[in-house]
């Protein structure tokens, strides 16, 4: 039963990544693109955790945690760049 649920969730996460890619490509403003990248990082975390459940190893949690941290830092850095034209002043 878990396999079917996992397959369903894989399809959902892949579809949402594709939708985010559409928003990233055609987003009318810069803020839209930053938001799309942030959401892509969150969907990537979901995909990594699902893959960890499917493989029954806890090896992917560190990768998911790193994804969360790097996604947050990159979003903040890009927004700071848009706001000030510089990241570390």
């Amino acid at each position, binding site marked *: *039963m*878990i396999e*079917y*649920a*996992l397959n*369903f*969730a*894989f*399809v*959902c*996460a892949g*579809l*949402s*990544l594709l*939708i*985010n890619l*559409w*928003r990233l490509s055609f987003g009318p*403003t*810069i*803020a*839209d693109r*930053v*938001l*799309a990248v*942030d*959401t892509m990082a*969150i*969907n990537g*975390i*979901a995909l990594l*955790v*699902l893959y*960890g*459940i499917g493989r*029954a190893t*806890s090896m992917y*949690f560190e990768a*998911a*945690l790193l994804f*969360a*941290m790097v996604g*947050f830092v990159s*979003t*903040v850095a890009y*927004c*700071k760049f*848009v*706001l*000030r034209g510089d990241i570390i002043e």
Partner: protein
Amino acid sequence: MEFFAELVISVLIVIGGLFTLIGSFGLVKLPHLLMRLHAPTKATTVGVGSILIASMLFFWIEQGTFTIHELLITIFLFLTAPITANLIGKAYLLRHVDPHEELPHTGEKEGWATFDPRHPEEYPKDPGKLPQEEARKTD
């Protein structure tokens, strides 16, 4: 008992997948950026949160090891989501919203984006009367 545990884990995984899809669908469907900021929070909280709870239960029941790594990711996402939303909103306000026409006044020097460019009237007209210049003259 085994069947019940599998049922709970599967339902949590399905809920997580559905909510990640709903969050990304809202990102495409909603018409305005400040509305679009609202949609992916569903994917962050309910989507990733229920998937992480499912993985915690899975490793607890299937392998007998109770870990709280997943809670770490959940807490980190919950802490950082408002900060990113605030910064994206500020970037949008700075770039695409006129602070003097479309927004109410903040009542302070800074605008809503904190780093708004100043209105042309707020710049001093005579650069010779800047306070730094006067201080330099007296030296």
